[in-house]
């Protein structure tokens, strides 16, 4: 029964969030709580020659200043520091471990004081002398030192030969700058000292169990010594996938002082965490005169740190998406004196598909073909890289529905041909693609005889709506009103869940709820079938369903036993079941979500000001569990795409290896006035192969393709092709 799944149910945590009751990591109270403040390195590479904390220690209210020289023990092996999502190659950063400086903004001391202002003030009194070493932070300057990450995928055919022979060819570099997540919540940890070396750690994270295992390893603790809790996360977008240094330092402080410690990073300090790595994306396309692709090559050159090789799939999308007999792909890394990049919303795809889809637009111009027509010409019903059919792929329908809603057929293909008063109008489009991933997740359901259920799991809700979809799926599976379902998430002591990322949590948590609910139904059937003259006496589990507070026969819901009666008969008050759901491996299908994005921009011809006046995003992502929160997720992704296209970029002064705009006044993210009409269309995409409910996930797909659609619209408006993002007005006025 689907009373809730597929409906626009309002967020079950909505009331907590609009009343200020929802507590985030840095807001949990504790007796005797003290406050930390981080001192950061101001050089990108070298060692600490001298660190003088005496003046800071003299400030009244300062309790301690922890440095590499006086800290409690930290694990000395990389295994302990490698969390669930750490890069395979490398040696993870260890805060306050030794005197080595690996990046500008690296934490080098933690001041702990009775009050936050005191700690902040005392941090300014810590004196540091460095022994600076030579460094490099400029990806474009160091492009020549790029090395292949892993071995490249097997090329198809002879791409170089096909490109040389191609009737129409396009080749260009697209440059995506470093970008920072900038979640609204500052990174924070409250490490509550529970006595006896035990801690409850409230942390801003996308994975409480990842942080739990990591802390146990780093501090040599037993699993029962530490509990990690994170009921609300004020945005993360990938920045909370790996444990960040503030959780190490807050825990370190609590262990050193045997007191509860809160550490909240400043906005500026958060620029020392992970980021979307700057990439140079070189795409070459060769086509026949009718638009059929004959060759695709995509080479990505990305920044990483000197101590870890972080790489994501930038080029695989070009490999998979379009039909082409010849292709070659490679991903190269340049090690620089910066912190390790990390996942940021649609990692790899946001950048790689941006380049691919701008290149496709340029090819369409060269071919004098409509950009949608070119995509249809190269459309593939099979994943080109693995030559596999998809579990489902309604991208064709996305193009059709999106184009129709946008009014694409009225487009005059000539650049600078459309106007609205003194503004040039441009229409552009692009394709989006992301993976449909799913992971093992366990859920516990405790059903009480009064028809209430508590559903719990260690998974996080980072604003994605996990609380709500878990409640919806549980209400349907248990046949109860949603008001009777309470959901507990993001506590490391709850049943197993991976980090929340990659758009995998919707499918993964929903099917774990189904699995646990089936165990509950099994128990109820066992009780109900034994009752005197039971209408379910000879019923098989597969013939039963939970509906309206009863267990009933699927084909005749009137033949039923109420949950209360079944439990009373069994003389029990509650049924508690936990089940780990694992998905069958399917190597015969490719699993992806797709979108078609259409953008309208208006460009002031004299001032170069660009406004995104309209976006239509038509998304095929299997079954949509919640049309309200799902629409919001895609809309949010579109806003991210506007940011990528027009606003965002972390600017480094390479003379000092230091970020120049580490704040949200100078690192621009879209504001309300930057965002106008966003039309999200969910294309029907039944999927009988991917999983029982046909769910694919929505967190990432919303952003993919949007920057390219906007860049292509800017070209159509102005005739200027900007390949270096973001597209700021100075680039149009050049």
């Amino acid at each position, binding site marked *: 029964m689907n009373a809730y799944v597929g409906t626009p149910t309002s967020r079950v945590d*909505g009331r907590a969030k609009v009343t200020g009751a929802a507590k985030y990591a840095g807001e949990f109270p504790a007796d005797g709580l003290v406050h930390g403040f981080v001192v950061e390195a101001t050089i990108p590479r070298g060692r600490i020659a001298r660190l003088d904390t005496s003046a800071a220690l003299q400030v009244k209210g300062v309790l301690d200043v922890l440095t590499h020289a006086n800290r409690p023990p930290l694990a000395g092996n990389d295994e302990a520091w490698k969390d669930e999502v750490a890069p395979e190659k490398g040696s993870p950063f260890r805060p306050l471990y030794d005197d080595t400086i690996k990046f500008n903004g690296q934490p080098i001391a933690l001041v702990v004081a009775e009050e936050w*202002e005191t700690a902040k003030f005392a941090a300014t009194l810590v004196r540091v002398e460095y022994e600076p070493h030579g460094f490099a932070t400029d990806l474009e300057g160091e492009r020549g030192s790029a090395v292949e990450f892993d071995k490249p995928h097997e090329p198809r055919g002879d791409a170089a030969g096909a490109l040389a022979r191609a009737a129409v060819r396009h080749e260009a570099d697209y440059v995506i700058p470093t970008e920072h997540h900038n979640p609204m919540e500052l990174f924070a940890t409250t490490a509550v000292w529970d006595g006896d070396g035990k801690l409850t750690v409230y942390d801003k994270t996308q994975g409480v169990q990842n942080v739990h295992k990591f802390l146990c390893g780093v501090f040599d603790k037993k699993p029962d010594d530490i509990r990690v809790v994170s009921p609300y996360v004020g945005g993360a977008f990938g920045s909370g996938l790996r444990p960040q240094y503030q959780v190490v330092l807050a825990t370190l402080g609590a262990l050193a002082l045997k007191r509860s410690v809160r550490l909240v990073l400043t906005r500026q300090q958060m620029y020392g965490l992970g980021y979307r790595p700057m990439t140079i994306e070189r795409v070459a396309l060769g086509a026949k005169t009718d638009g059929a692709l004959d060759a695709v090559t995509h080479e990505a050159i990305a920044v990483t740190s000197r101590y870890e090789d972080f790489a994501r799939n930038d080029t695989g999308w070009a490999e998979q998406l379009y039909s082409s007999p010849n292709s070659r792909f490679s991903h190269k890394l340049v090690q620089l004196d910066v912190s390790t990049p990390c996942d940021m919303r649609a990692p790899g795809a946001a950048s790689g598909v941006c380049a691919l889809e701008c290149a496709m637009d340029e090819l369409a111009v060269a071919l004098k073909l409509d950009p949608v027509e070119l995509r249809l010409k190269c459309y593939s019903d099979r994943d080109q890289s693995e030559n596999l059919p998809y579990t489902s792929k309604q991208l064709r329908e996305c193009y059709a529905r999106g184009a129709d809603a946008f009014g694409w057929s009225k487009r005059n293909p000539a650049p600078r041909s459309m106007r609205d008063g003194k503004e040039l109008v441009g229409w552009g489009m692009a394709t989006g693609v992301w993976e449909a991933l799913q992971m093992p997740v366990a859920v516990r359901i405790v059903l009480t005889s009064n028809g209430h259920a508590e559903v719990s799991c260690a998974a996080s809700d980072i604003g994605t709506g996990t609380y709500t979809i878990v409640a919806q799926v549980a209400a349907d599976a248990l046949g109860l009103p949603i008001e009777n379902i309470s959901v507990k998430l993001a506590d490391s002591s709850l049943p197993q869940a991976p980090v929340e990322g990659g758009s995998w949590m919707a499918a993964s948590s929903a099917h774990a709820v189904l699995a646990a609910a089936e165990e509950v139904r099994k128990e109820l059937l066992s009780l109900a079938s034994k009752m005197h003259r039971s209408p379910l006496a000879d019923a098989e589990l597969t013939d039963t369903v939970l509906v309206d507070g009863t267990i009933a026969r699927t084909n005749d819901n009137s033949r039923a036993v109420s949950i209360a009666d079944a439990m009373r008969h069994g003389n029990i008050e509650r049924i508690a079941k936990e089940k780990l759901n694992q998905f069958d491996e399917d190597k015969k299908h490719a699993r992806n979500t797709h979108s078609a994005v259409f953008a309208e921009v208006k460009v002031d011809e004299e001032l170069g000001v660009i406004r995104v006046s309209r976006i239509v995003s038509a998304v095929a992502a299997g079954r949509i569990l919640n049309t309200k929160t799902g629409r919001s997720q895609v809309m949010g992704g579109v806003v991210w795409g506007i940011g990528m296209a027009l606003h965002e970029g972390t600017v480094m002064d390479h003379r000092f290896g230091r970020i120049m705009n580490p*704040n949200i006044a100078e690192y621009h*993210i879209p504001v*309300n006035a930057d965002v106008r009409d966003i039309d999200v269309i969910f294309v029907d995409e039944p999927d009988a192969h991917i999983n029982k409910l046909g769910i694919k996930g929505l967190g990432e797909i919303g952003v993919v393709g949007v920057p390219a659609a906007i860049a292509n619209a800017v070209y159509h408006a102005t005739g200027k092709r900007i390949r270096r993002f973001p597209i700021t007005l100075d680039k149009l006025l050049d």
Partner: protein
Amino acid sequence: MAQASHQMPERIPVNLVVNGTNRDLDLAPWTTLLDALRDHLGMTGTKKGCDHGQCGACTVLVDGRRVNSCLTLAVMKDGAEITTIEGLAEDATLHPLQQAFIDHDAFQCGYCTPGQICSAAGLLAEGHAKDADEIRELMSGNLCRCGAYPNIVAAIQQAMGRP
């Protein structure tokens, strides 16, 4: 450096009327209204997103006007009436803006939400915003990284009672 510069400032008595309740505090002059609320009164509904007046997450109403509480020293508001997100609902009944934010899914992570709602309450009181464009413009001091802006505009329009 002179030793004197390392001493902490004297505390000053401050009276704030927070959501209708008199609160007496002894605060250092450098304590912001935001930190007074969060750290000294334990009212964490008001959020810190930048501490520099760049994001609007800390927006509260001071004597009915919306301000960034991170750019406001608490001692300068002695005697002022402060309304925070915790003070908008009346008993169990949500403020029309709070309900509208839920109805229109005008948030995801919820961290900017108290500031958005307080800012919107200030906006309605100002009476300057007549249409969606003006709402967008006058709400642009409140950043939302989840990108809920179109829903925020729709929620405010619902609370205004006009499209």
